[in-house]
């Protein structure tokens, strides 16, 4: 009897150990998929990555992929501008260093035309390579997923045709402000752009009394399309404006476009960071987190940094709000989504596809967000995961403030605002130059936008049928 009970105890122990072991085995989840993960064992992949929170969330997880597949992963990480340029040189020269790279719709439009990015549809539809049921593509939010699909129609065709990239994070553009200073200074949260100008101008004045000085508003300003893309394009599209007309001529110099641009430039001149034309998003995020700004009109996902006490002095002191509205009450936001795409030049396309499948699988994306702060996630199951909900509910002046904004962006306000065409980043660069000229007082806003429109028209002429 004693022997029997001892045997039962041992059996139970073995069972418990095996259960715990199974839970701790990081490969078990992936091995449920009807995919031969070892099909390309011994291959080496090179991944091109931008210096970004997503990259930091992916790197610690890479050993799991290597263990699962036997594929070695090397990677190159560069700051955003340098990354895109290095990538362009690699792709255009036929160098083919990168098998997989971080990308985004605005860039994919050029890559697709030039034949530098692989259509993922054939891999997705290949049962040898993909277990569609296990992967659950429907779990992705529609907006970032369709933004990475394009049929090549200039000024249209978004969400159709080729599938160029799988979205790994998404960002919208909202207001983040120092609620402690708002209360101290008796300010209100702006709901219109003229109101935003007044509030930030006051904040910039009041901030001079603080030690160290607190500036009005952080916003990126470098000579690049990305300066246009964030807070400015959000304001611009809120006023009902588009970058291009249907006939592919520039639409950036309409009366309404000039009106909102004047307000925006005024905000930057009265309350923006000193040396705004050389300010990157890295600078804006870090300096807001360091408590040097009252407000930032840039990426919503920066909240993950602001609310992390290890990286920020404004954790628990920050409020979040939708972008201000146009006079007609309209609110919009531009959208950016980082994705992973496959190079057409890759010599290891099968292995590259397995990497994409693994990196964007529900569990990988959940681990990236929960353990390593990849915000905002692009899968519904991750955003609605109880642990993620618990973490993000605390962000803002009241429970759920941040989450409400992201939900509203997905449901209503946020979307990609650029007109699909391969030269969109060139248009953005020219446009950013116009903002610089207006900010520096070299030209009046009207003149700067008119001149930029002429240059954009020259660029777009080749795309007219």
């Amino acid at each position, binding site marked *: 009897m004693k022997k029997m009970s001892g045997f039962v105890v041992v059996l139970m122990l073995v069972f418990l150990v095996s259960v715990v072991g199974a839970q701790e085995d990081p490969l078990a989840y992936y091995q449920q998929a009807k995919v031969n993960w070892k099909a390309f064992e011994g291959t080496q992949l090179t991944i091109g990555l931008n210096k970004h929170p997503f990259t930091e969330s992916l790197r610690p997880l890479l050993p799991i992929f290597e263990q699962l597949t036997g594929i070695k992963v090397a990677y190159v990480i560069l700051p955003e*501008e340098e990354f895109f*340029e290095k990538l*362009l*040189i690699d792709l*255009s020269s036929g160098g083919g260093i990168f098998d997989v790279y971080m990308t985004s719709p605005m860039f994919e439009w*050029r890559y697709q*035309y*030039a*034949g530098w990015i692989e259509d993922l549809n054939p891999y997705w539809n290949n049962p040898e390579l993909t277990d569609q049921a296990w992967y659950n593509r429907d779990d992705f939010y529609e907006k970032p997923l369709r933004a990475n699909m394009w049929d090549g129609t200039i000024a249209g065709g978004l969400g159709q045709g080729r599938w160029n990239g799988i979205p790994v994070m998404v960002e919208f553009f909202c207001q983040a402000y120092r609620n402690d200073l708002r209360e101290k200074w008796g300010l209100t949260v702006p709901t219109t752009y003229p109101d935003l100008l007044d509030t930030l101008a006051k904040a910039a004045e009041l901030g001079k009394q603080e030690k160290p000085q607190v*500036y009005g508003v952080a916003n990126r*300003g*470098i*000579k*690049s399309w990305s300066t246009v893309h964030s807070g400015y394009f959000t304001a611009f599209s809120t006023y009902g404006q588009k970058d291009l007309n249907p006939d592919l001529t520039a639409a950036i110099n309409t009366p309404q476009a000039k009106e909102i641009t004047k307000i925006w430039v005024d905000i930057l001149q009265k309350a923006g*960071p*000193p*040396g*705004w*034309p*050389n*300010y990157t998003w890295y*600078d804006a995020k870090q*300096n807001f987190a*360091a408590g*040097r700004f009252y407000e930032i009109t840039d990426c919503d996902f920066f909240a993950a940094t602001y609310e992390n006490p290890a990286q920020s002095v404004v954790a628990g002191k920050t409020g979040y709000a939708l972008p201000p509205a146009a006079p007609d009450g309209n609110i919009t936001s531009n959208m950016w989504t980082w994705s992973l795409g496959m190079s057409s030049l890759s010599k290891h396309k099968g292995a590259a596809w397995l990497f994409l499948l693994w990196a964007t699988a529900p569990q990988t994306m959940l681990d990236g967000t929960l353990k390593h702060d990849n915000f905002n996630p692009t899968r519904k199951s991750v955003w609605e995961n109880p642990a993620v909900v618990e973490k993000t509910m605390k962000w803002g002046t009241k429970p759920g403030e941040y989450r409400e904004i992201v939900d509203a962006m997905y449901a209503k306000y946020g979307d990609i605002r650029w007109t699909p065409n*391969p*030269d969109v*980043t*060139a248009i953005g*660069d020219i446009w950013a*130059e116009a903002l*610089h*000229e207006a*900010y*520096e007082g*070299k030209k009046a806003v009207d003149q700067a936008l008119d001149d930029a429109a002429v240059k954009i028209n020259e*660029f777009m002429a*080749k795309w007219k049928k």
Partner: protein
Amino acid sequence: MASGMELRQSFWRKNIALLLFLPAFLLTVGILAPFGYSVVMSFTNFNLTTGTSNFIGISNYIKLVRDPEFWNSLKVTILFTIGAVLFEVGVGFIAAYLLNIGLLGQKLWRTLFLLPVMLPPTVAAIMWKLMMAPIQGVFNYLLQLVGLPGSEWLGSSSTALLSVILIDAYVFIPFAGMIFLAGVQNLPKEPYEAAAVDGVSNWFTFRKLTIPLLKPVIIIVLLFRIMDCLKHFDIIYAATKGGPASATMTLSVQAYYHSFRWTAMGYSFAHLVVLWAIVYALSYFLVGQWKKAVSEVHGY
């Protein structure tokens, strides 16, 4: 009947000159082939996105002449070159003099003086960009410590060009200084002894002896620095990307935008061909001046 050995020796005797010339020939072809290709491509609408590469005659050059951005970038290139060269040659000359008068710890000073030239220019640019950051940069902190207002440095069109000139000067003053130092150390002693006997002032000696004797060295420094500044890219792009409002947009940076940001390679090559012509013409002139100076000083 010649033996195999004799045949081999005969082959080497006949062809040794050609074989010795081969590396130089390959190097020349290696330089000239891409250059020739670039010139040819400047007459096409070569675009990486559209995949076109059709001959369009001198259209790119006509567009260039009509493009206000081209003229702005030419102006910026000239201003940058004048500013940087004057700064580097002036300070380099003074530094060479100071390093030659036997200061205490001269070896240490010479070592420290050389450090910046060992830095990759891009690294130097990023380092200075951080130091010049208006909010958290050390320069404004130090200025405010002594009660002076901070500057926007690279972030304002009124100070950006001067700021990139400063960065360039930091990296290349040692280069100029070391060449001047070598020149100063090789000056003949006799004319100076004669001048001392005649009791002339130091200023007179400097003007009438040192400068004329150093003329070939000065021209060599000018040649290297002018060529380098006209083609300058790395420091400016890393520091400002040609901004704000094109205040630091040199021809090289402009060409880079057209090629590696906008994929309009044909138009970019047109910029670079014009830049090459300017560099070549100036170099040709300076080499002529250098030959003249050498013959004046050394009599050959």
